[in-house]
């Protein structure tokens, strides 16, 4: 089932209640998300993106997932 940018944003919002979140994309498969969260300050990029993937709860998982392509930008607030 295709997923919407709004659903992605909702999942991310649950995982990162205080983050600044932007999700773009409307073709049901390709999205770009930016998450700016204070918890990223002491994490490297791999750790930051892992926690974002965790918030998406398996939606990225290949053939079982709804989400084919998500370009991710993560950072701590400057």
């Amino acid at each position, binding site marked *: 089932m295709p997923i919407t940018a709004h659903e992605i944003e909702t999942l991310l919002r649950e995982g990162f209640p205080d983050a600044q979140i932007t999700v773009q994309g409307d073709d049901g498969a390709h999205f770009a998300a930016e998450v700016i969260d204070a918890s990223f300050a002491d994490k490297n*990029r*791999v750790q930051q*993106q*892992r926690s974002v*993937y965790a918030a998406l709860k*398996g939606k*990225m*998982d*290949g053939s079982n*997932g709804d989400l084919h*392509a*998500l*370009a*991710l*930008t993560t950072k701590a607030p400057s």
Partner: protein
Amino acid sequence: MTAETQIKDTVTTNDVVLFMKGTKSMPQCGFSSRVAGVLNFMGVEFADVNVLADEDIRQGIKDYSDWPTVPQLYVKGEFVGGCDIITEMMLSGELDTLFTQNSVDFDKDAADKIREANA
């Protein structure tokens, strides 16, 4: 040989390995294409593993790194990141530093050219 053993063997016997969809000469996904393109342009010698050719590796690499997406870049056995991370590290110069620290040869001028073009 299990997928995990096979992956471990690949990333420890090759300095730079890219797990990707397709091959470095014929990528089959935009994200894989971008990372392979960066490495090719920088003149980095790397092994490419086409996950589309082996379902066990395709799932195995995700379990190995605890990372749900492909491409995945490994340098000296360490997982470096996926497409977005490699792109950021390329543009910030961190990828140059990583290669230098690990004695991986690359064309510094080419790397600077990519940055100039994306400035």
